[in-house]
């Protein structure tokens, strides 16, 4: 069970949150066309490794938090408010070959 250190509420269990997916995708401009919106809605990298993602603190402050989570170990590296930048660790997690989690864009 993941524990998320909410900047507003403190350390809380994942049951208080709703997952909202990849936080690195950006909604295209309204005139960007079908392809761009298709990618925005459907295309995801699905990495094994660090993942920057939205967690909505539904049973708390109602803020969308940017969480850097390792998809294999569920380790949470960082939690930030929606507008803040987060750092994706450069070092590979123990047990994960470096090659396998490259290419995760910084949010």
């Amino acid at each position: 069970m993941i524990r998320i250190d909410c900047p507003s509420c403190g350390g809380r269990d994942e049951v208080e949150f709703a997952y909202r997916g990849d936080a690195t995708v950006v909604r295209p401009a309204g005139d960007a066309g079908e392809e761009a919106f298709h990618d925005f809605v459907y295309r995801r990298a699905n990495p094994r490794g660090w993942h920057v993602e939205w967690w909505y603190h539904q049973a708390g402050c109602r803020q969308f938090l940017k969480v850097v989570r390792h998809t294999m170990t569920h380790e949470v590296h960082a939690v930030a408010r929606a507008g803040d930048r987060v750092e994706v660790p450069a070092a590979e997690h123990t047990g994960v070959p470096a090659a396998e989690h490259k290419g995760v864009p910084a949010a």
Partner: protein
Amino acid sequence: MTQMFRMASGGIVDRSRTIGFRFDGRAYQGHPGDTLASALLANGVRLVGRSFKLHRPRGIFAAGAEEPNALAELRTGARREPNTRMTQIELYDGLEAASQNRWPSLRWDLLSLNGLIAPLLSAGFYYKTFMWPASFWEKVYEPLIRRSAGLGRASREADPDRYDTMQAHCDVLVIGGGVAGLAAALVAGASGVRVMLCEQDFVLGAGLIGEDEAWRSAALERLAGMANVTLLARTNVFGAYDANVVGALERVADHVAEPGAFVPRQRYWTIRAGRVVHATGAYERFIAFPDNDRPGVMLAGAAATYVARYGVHPGRRALLFANNDAAYQSLFTMQDAGVTVAGVVDPRADSAAQAAARARGITVWSASQVVGTAGSLALSGARVARIGSAGTDTLVAADVLCVSGGINPAVQLATQSRTAVAWSERLASWVPGAALLPQFSAGAANGVTGLREAAADGARAGAGASGAPADALGLPEDRPSDVTVLPFWEVKGSGKAFVDIQDDVTADDIRLAAREGYKHIEHAKRYTTHTMGTDQGKSGGLVGAAVLAEARGERVQDVGMPTFRPFTSPVTWGAIAGTSIGKHFAPTRLSPLHEWHVKRGAVFMDAGQWVRPAYYPAPVDGDGWDSVLREARAARRGVAVCDVSTLGKIDVQGRDAAVFLDRLYTNTFSNLPVGRARYGLMLREDGIVFDDGTTSRLAEDHFFVTTTTANAGPVMQHMEFYLQTVWPDLDVTLASVTDQWAAMSIAGPKARATIERIIEGLDVSNEAFGFMAVADATVKGCPVRVFRISFSGELAYEIATPAGHAQTVWNAVLEAGEAFKIEPYGVEALGLLRIEKGHVTGAELNGQTTAADVGLEKMFKKRGDFVGKVLSQRPGLTDPSRPRLVGVRPVMRGDQLRAGMHLVESGTTHSLGWMTAVTRAVELEGWIGLAMLRDGVARIGSRMQAASPLHGALVDVEIVSPHFVDPENARVRV
């Protein structure tokens, strides 16, 4: 003579008290401190069950959680619990248990004939034997298998007991209360940090019994005196989850006939630990040899436990078959307690323990093996042969055969936390490697054996977990015990050599799986069901892996092991459900007018978490339909009032509120004048309709949004998402005000005449307060917002008031409407009115429909971006042949329609659409309904059939406009 196998002294059972229990209907006696298994052995009961598949006679094999055979149905009636391990059931006065999977009785089991057709029941037999013909599966094979294979029967009555759910936090969690766990808890506890210790047994430090009891009692006393240490006995940690969160099951009242008042039967713990110490011990493993499942064959450590802990002789004459010196200590313990020793069979040529045994006068067959067992329902002897000497074996008389193939550290929980394992040549088993999480393994779980060494290892782990020094702890005394093994897994010969005793999986089954291509350990496991029983292969998992390794021509360590997953031992559904049962499963939400509805005698229905009045029966009504039709008629012809407080309400404020709503809805709100409301449609980003509702502009920078009852939460989250993450630059603030505002809809031709009498400070005439107008006013001094909006299709007003004023305003409306015979109407009449009007709800906006599907394509603004705009134009979503909203009427007006009916061309069975909602109508004769229908618009005016094969119903219908009543929408404007 009862308890003829009970020793006069020894162990920690309370001989001063005798308690009675029944097994398979027969009365026996035991003592407090016994398990059902130890008490049965004390009474000389050797046969306790029949095997899962082959119905072979089985006896008690272990003394703890690894027990594969001795499973019982515990208790009777509603409390009957199948597959409980007799080795873990604490004896209590009046206990009733029954053996499983035997018919008609345990001794005379007719289905043991399965043994004769065993060749048919080999690995993968489900897949092979019963594949053809397909129709035979349901009629013949499945009933046959269900009759013959299986474990215990669950009770069919509701569980009368309560189960608790607990959450706990600690700095150091110690899993296991053996000597290593106690040492770890002592060291960590002394440092002052919060410590929890969970032990599945009802006794802590059981391994010290008969060894260093002084150290044990001193340790327990010290721990009990530490306020920062919580000791949980009878608590099995069944799973390790992310970030040092573990799940544990505490058996609070399983050791009594029924829980006391206000006492739960079990507690389900979720424990969040800073650091975890795995002091989970080790499980002894057996050796596969022909007929190694006969009652009387027992793990060596278990046999010693029955002697040392329970003061019970597991037999009169014991033979040991072991490949390691530590197992000899088990035999010596038995010998010292008066059990006659038949000898030792050891595949090794020589060892220190062999010499020690000979010095004790024990016969040792070195470089030998057990090639078979004798006896029928109980062991009478074992056949012993020198390794390599074909055909010449000696029958050695014995009624208990102690087996030890070495130990397997209990790494299950550590590996669930992704701790890698390493192969230990000394143990010929897996030991934990470096932990990924802040975790420590200690004692036998870490491959460290002997009480003294294990305690020192536990102290080291406790120190590592708490930062305290470990050296202060005194260590217990122990006897030399060397667990170094000669890897020895299987004795080949004629007869079934089991590698999974519970699931009746033999070494030959594993080889068959390998031959048929199931060579991966995970495949072999599933093909043979090896390690898939309730014991999870604790004593035989590695043995089967070794057989597979040999078949593959590889080493055991190269074959690996199957992934260990929760649960390490079975957990009842009651504990998992905990307190989330019945009405406690989800919150119940009540309207502020709920008490009035109750007094009025409303029939209620659930709408998500809400409880809403379905209708209000009156004495004149014959049935529910009479009530619904009467209420709907009042709304169409006079006046009626409905509690709509459950609608979702969101307050949107800020300089950019209008821009924000423009981007969220398909239509425009920035041009909505203050004091007006507008119907809005919201899409998901993928172009599908998400929700609808009215939005009112209360000020330039202040909107009041309503959502459907069901989507109040999701719409709020949707808005927050776009506001916080997509357009954070917008100056907008959102607040959910669903519970803050009560709301009531007053509908009908007499609606205005009704509210005119009570609205203060507002002219509600048609000229001053037209359709879709919004304004503040008061009713009996209470602040209200008045909205001229209509869901029913009649002249209607919605009055919202802060929840605390709801009853005052509701009463005023009823009083004012009395002259017009006002009726309250419930959700059923609300549904009737909206179907007649052709308004859509969740039945149509079901997450699959587009705006065009439900006839709302005109609600798309021409200019500007909004959520879902781009993808709503995809070819698949704009295909004109998509199912579209239509109305349906039976040709014979008396015919009944049903929701879910399929629409077909007459005489065909190909479904072209489905009925989403049906009702009896008040403005029209008979039943009407809404449907989603392919090429729906083109089919208006045509005839089809509505079919419900489940009900045997086939109705001729005509397809009509979905707007049955007032399609020009004139009534709302009068």
